[in-house]
């Protein structure tokens, strides 16, 4: 258990539609699954049927992309009501989203847009996080975003902003070490220094993923294997003492479950964590 009372779940995978059948048929040795909240909270149909069945066998954590915690639009309580209902339905261990905004004036970009890191933004987001946590009656975990642009008006670095936000709102953090790597390249900052500025006792979850190197910039595409440097960053963050669960995201050109599973197992070498079920193949060992 970490300071928020969230369990350390071990090594998990992002749940993706193409793997439903294989998961239900073989019950692979995975400690937990993370779902994209919006893929289920607006559906009353087939996605929920699969999720209910998978939740019978695995702990579920919810990860959202549309909370828009940084937007200057009013908080969307219809969204929050659906989010809470889904959490209660599947018994999700915690709920996370991103430090970003997705739209304003009622229009949605469906992208995770960065904020200017200013005192104005800090005050605004901290207040909204507190409201969301009161509504959910649970701590919210916020993820550091990957980004491709920065604001001239920013007066704080991203990790300092996150640390101050977490302290003011008393929220948890989801540390995506691939995002740290991507943004460090795109903006020219030191990824290790970034990690050093993050309050490790608030980190409840890590994300690792692949990315696409475009030369002038890196896109956080969640495709392909995790690169060595991102694994190293995970190991460094882990060694700092985070009581956190680890999750692999793979969202584009998704390979068979066996391939994703093998990639997840590499996390063991950097986190001293083993899957709670011994693995001889994809199937659970009795």
């Amino acid at each position: 258990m970490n300071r928020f009372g969230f369990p350390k779940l071990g090594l998990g995978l992002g749940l993706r539609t193409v793997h439903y059948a294989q998961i239900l048929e073989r019950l692979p040795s995975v400690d937990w699954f993370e779902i994209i909240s919006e893929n289920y909270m607006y559906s009353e149909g087939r996605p929920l049927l699969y999720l209910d069945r998978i939740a019978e066998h695995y702990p579920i954590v919810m990860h959202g992309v549309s909370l828009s915690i940084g937007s200057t639009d009013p908080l969307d309580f219809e969204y929050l009501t659906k989010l809470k209902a889904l959490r209660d339905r599947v018994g999700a261990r915690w709920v996370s989203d991103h430090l970003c905004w997705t739209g304003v004036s009622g229009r949605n970009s469906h992208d995770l847009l960065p904020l200017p890191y200013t005192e104005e933004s800090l005050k605004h987001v901290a207040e909204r996080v507190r409201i969301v946590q009161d509504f959910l009656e649970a701590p919210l975990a916020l993820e550091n975003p990957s980004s491709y642009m920065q604001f001239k008006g920013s007066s704080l670095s991203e990790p300092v902003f996150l640390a101050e936000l977490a302290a003011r709102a008393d929220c948890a953090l989801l540390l995506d070490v691939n995002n740290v790597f991507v943004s460090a390249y795109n903006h020219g900052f030191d990824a290790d220094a970034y990690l050093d500025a993050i309050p490790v006792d608030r980190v409840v979850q890590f994300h690792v993923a692949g990315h696409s190197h475009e030369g002038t910039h890196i896109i956080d595409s969640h495709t392909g294997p995790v690169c060595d440097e991102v694994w190293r960053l995970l190991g460094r963050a882990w060694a700092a003492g985070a009581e956190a669960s680890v999750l692999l995201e793979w969202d584009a050109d998704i390979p068979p479950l066996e391939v994703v599973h093998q990639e997840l197992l590499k996390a063991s070498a950097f986190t001293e964590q083993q899957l709670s079920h011994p693995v001889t193949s994809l199937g659970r060992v009795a």
Partner: protein
Amino acid sequence: MTSEPNLQNVQEWLLALITHPGSDEAASSQVATRFGALSVEQVLSEGPRQSAVERLHIYRYAYTARLVECLADDFGAVRYLLGQQTFESMCRTYIATHPSQSPNLNVYGRDFPAFLRQLAHDWAVFAAELAELEWALVQVVHSQSSDGLSPDALQSVPTAKLASLRFVPNSAVRLLRFEYPVNAYLRAFFLDEQPTPPQKQATSVVVVRAGTTLRRIELSAAQALLLARLLDAEPLLQALDGVDATPAQLQEWFREWTEFRLFAALEL
């Protein structure tokens, strides 16, 4: 904008830039006009290898690409029919005129069939009908589905009550009528048979989900007439008026419709 823009100003300015359908230059100049001559270089910093405008372009490109991908997911057969280039061009026009106003991407394509229908192209009606069928599949996937009637539910209705009997439709049912054989085209597309656009031929199809299984059932004109009336909750006797079918045929239709869970309940 005379003073330092606040967070709301910055967000409105940036979203206007990201969603602007024109070139980077057109977006910059037109949006700047609306926001007191606020320029990209004033607000965004350059990166180690890219200018501020090039960095903004990443978000502008991603905005359209994401929504095109969303439409392609929902309307794969329409994309095949139109070809990638025309489909993308149609998507870009749709995106420019239909900004997303919901956090739920599942609903983004709901106006796409109507958008296609009003286009001045000879393929517009068929493309719109194909899109309507694909959109019905999306709707049915996400609709709640009941367990449906038991196979003997009809037999247990007292004869005296049959005339006024009404059927409550399963929420995961859509009945569609077309000028073209749309379902045959979609089936051939799913089977990778590389279908070509068909000649006009009136058809009807009902889409239903039971559990995780989706079905598309083609209907004769008589079946479509009766089913449409039943789904509109017309009493059974009234619904049967003028329907060209023998008692044996009707019995078979009701057996099949019950088996496929088109109805959630009976109202006596």
